[in-house]
């Protein structure tokens, strides 16, 4: 368990220093754990809605990753974000839930669950972005294009793609906030 914690911390520290591969691994490891938490809490909502909530949590983690203090343990930081966003997301979907922090510890032991479904919310939000930003997010996310490839396809410099992607993800969070409420 302790070894695993270190691992999360090392990955996130590397990610915050700009290592995209470590970051992808970090998100890949925490996503199933968070999915388990969201499903355990929102069983009545259905799998697709739970996956939407999970994506909201992941986007929040992404946009707030600089608030993690590399000297502090990752889990309390991660679970505080997850808890805040999960409660918020369920409230926006008309469900009040109470989420004691102890629950996170329990669910952690549970079997990680696999990514099941294509879900609609995020795609809808991406559709609300301006054309170029939407294309960038789709190219990199769905098609797995690199920054350079995306830049070539859109006749933009790699740096400009980088900035545009960053802005687009921030806008997505704002759109979700407005849309769900």
């Amino acid at each position, binding site marked *: 368990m302790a070894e695993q914690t270190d691992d999360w911390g090392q990955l996130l520290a590397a*990610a*915050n220093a*700009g*290592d*995209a*591969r470590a*970051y*992808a691994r970090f*998100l*890949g490891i925490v*996503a199933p754990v968070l*999915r388990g938490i969201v499903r355990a809490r929102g069983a009545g909502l259905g799998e697709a809605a739970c*996956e939407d909530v*999970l*994506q909201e949590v*992941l*986007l*929040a983690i*992404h*946009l*707030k*990753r*600089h*608030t*993690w*203090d590399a000297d*502090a343990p990752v889990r*309390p*930081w991660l*679970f*505080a*974000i997850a*808890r*805040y966003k999960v409660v918020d997301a369920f409230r926006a979907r008309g469900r009040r839930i109470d989420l004691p*922090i102890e629950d996170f510890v329990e669910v952690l032991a549970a079997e990680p669950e696999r*990514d099941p*479904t*294509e*879900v609609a919310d*995020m*795609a809808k939000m*991406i559709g609300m972005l301006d054309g170029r930003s939407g294309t960038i*997010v789709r190219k*990199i*996310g*769905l098609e*797995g294009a690199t*920054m350079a490839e995306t830049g070539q396809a859109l006749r933009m410099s790699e740096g400009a793609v*980088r*900035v545009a*992607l*960053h802005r687009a*993800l921030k806008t997505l*969070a704002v759109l979700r*906030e407005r849309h769900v409420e």
Partner: protein
Amino acid sequence: MRTDDLIRALAADTMPERPVAGAMLWVLVPALGGALLLLWLILGFRSDLLQAVSNPVALTRWVLAGALAVVSMRLALALARPEGGAQARLWPLAGVALLALGLLGWAYVTTPPGGRQMAMVGKTMWTCLLTIPLLSVLPVGGMLWALRRGATTVPARAGAVVGLAGSAAAAAVYALHCTEDSPLFYVTWYGVAILGVTLVSAAIGARVLRW
């Protein structure tokens, strides 16, 4: 969009964000400069400032306001982290409040009964109650803006703490003008002004610090 696709898009975005503490400092220096300038323009500094600084009782209000500002600012930075809501401790604030109340009690006892009311009401109560909130606008607004980069899970509490920090700093600035040196005056009315700003800032924080 599948979650794995989202993760790919998120991982590709490696642009760093400025940490909250840096943003706070960046905004606080001009905000306090602005408050100083504002005070100087509308009221001016007290003419006997140098003597006042050497009078321990008068000096204490800068010490108290400064301590409150520093303690609250540290707390605001702690609350800017998501886990800060559960972990941050409020007792240092209570410590400063107790010191202020102790000073108030001491001043009450040592002021002759006939002079208490005059010392407390003073001559500039309304100036004080209006100017401190006015001088708070820049520092409180700036710090709220900086805190939006953070990820507080207790928006109202974070807003309150920012209100305390900004209005305490504003009170320290206002003290450069104010000649009411009795703690009966300054603990009371600076305190009322600070509490008022804190309440308003808590209400604003509850709205603008959500994410």
